[in-house]
């Protein structure tokens, strides 16, 4: 099994409080679900894998291209969804030519894709952020509460995207406290 990311003895301390202690985790191809109640440290665990929080103890290794989408859309205001996604794709060295198709497949097309992101609804911004899954082709995808703010149609699109990622053997980590219907497709479930 190709390991996309590992944490060894990872302890994360924020504001003098240990959020996670001595976490060992191997993330391979397929779906990894991170479950836990509010405040259990799901977001912190994903941020640790992405290298967005320092480890007080332990080590982190990522062996492949990583895409991390938090519970906020992470799109720069002042730019359109299209401009944001073209920037990310170009930064990775991926052709930005696939951005329009990716956004279109998530229902963000035409004038909506060209409007500044702050004028879009929360659900549209979330869809645009999730379109990065298709436009950047990363092999390790971290999704923090990805179903939040999505309507039924977008939820189905996300389920479809998770299926596509599984078929291309990408490693996907989804942090959620619901959506137990995903458990059947999961390669592993991490409970915090």
């Amino acid at each position, binding site marked *: 099994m190709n390991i996309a990311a590992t944490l060894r003895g990872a302890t994360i301390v924020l504001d003098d409080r240990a959020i996670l202690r001595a976490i060992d985790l191997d993330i391979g191809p397929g779906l990894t679900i991170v479950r836990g109640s509010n405040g259990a440290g799901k977001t912190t665990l994903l*941020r640790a894998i992405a290298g967005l929080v320092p480890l007080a103890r332990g080590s982190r290794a990522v062996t492949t291209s990583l895409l*991390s989408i938090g519970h906020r859309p992470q799109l720069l205001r*002042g730019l359109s969804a299209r401009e944001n996604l073209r920037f990310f794709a*170009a930064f990775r060295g991926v052709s930005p030519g696939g951005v329009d198709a990716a956004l279109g497949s998530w229902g963000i097309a035409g004038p909506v894709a060209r409007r*500044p992101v702050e004028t879009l609804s929360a659900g549209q*911004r979330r869809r645009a952020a999730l379109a990065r899954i298709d436009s950047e082709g990363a092999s390790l995808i971290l999704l923090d509460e990805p179903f939040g703010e999505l309507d039924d149609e977008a939820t189905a699109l996300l389920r479809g995207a998770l299926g596509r990622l599984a078929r291309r053997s990408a490693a996907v980590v989804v942090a959620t406290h619901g959506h137990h219907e995903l458990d059947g497709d999961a390669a592993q479930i991490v409970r915090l």
Partner: protein
Amino acid sequence: MNALARIALVAGRELRAERRQPDGLVAALTFTAVLVLLESLVIGPAQARQPGVAAALFWIAMTFAAILATTRSFDRELEDDALDALLALPGGRDALFAGKVTALAGGLAIVAAGGGALSLVLLSLPVALPGHLALVTITGVVALPPVIVLDVLLALRLRARGVLVPILALPVLIPQLVAATQGAAAAMVGDANGSLAWSGLLIAFGLVYAVVGLTIVPATIE
């Protein structure tokens, strides 16, 4: 994609966002213009026309304008956690620092052109060596951003960053402020060698802090 291309991408993204929402640039321009106007009213045109006084006030205004514009730029990055997406990309941390420095230098050049023109016209400043003054202005515009972007980045996750950034940045910027002021004053009175020497010092300061920023930002920013 190489590092220079990534820096250009971040700088281009920054300038595009600033063009659509020019809050930082407008605030910086307004601040500089108001200070130039106040200068002539408060200390009187005769005093304000002194090369040392006019240059010092101009560069103090430029420094605060740069802090204002940089802080606003990073506020935009923190909205919707846009910064996290960049930091999670390979090479994102280096490109963030250098791209912001490049974009800020571009914005400051506009503020310097506007504020400088206003100073020259409003105060009827005599300039013996306009080319040298332009050189000092360009090197000053290049020397300020590395320190300011570095300080804003280091204070980014602190609640009191609005207060801390000037406190952290201003003592470090004193040599650059002295060099820019002395260099501009030298150009105004016709001291070519003096203005060139101060310009060289400004370039050196800019390079040193650019290297410091590129070295420590990837390891320190969260």
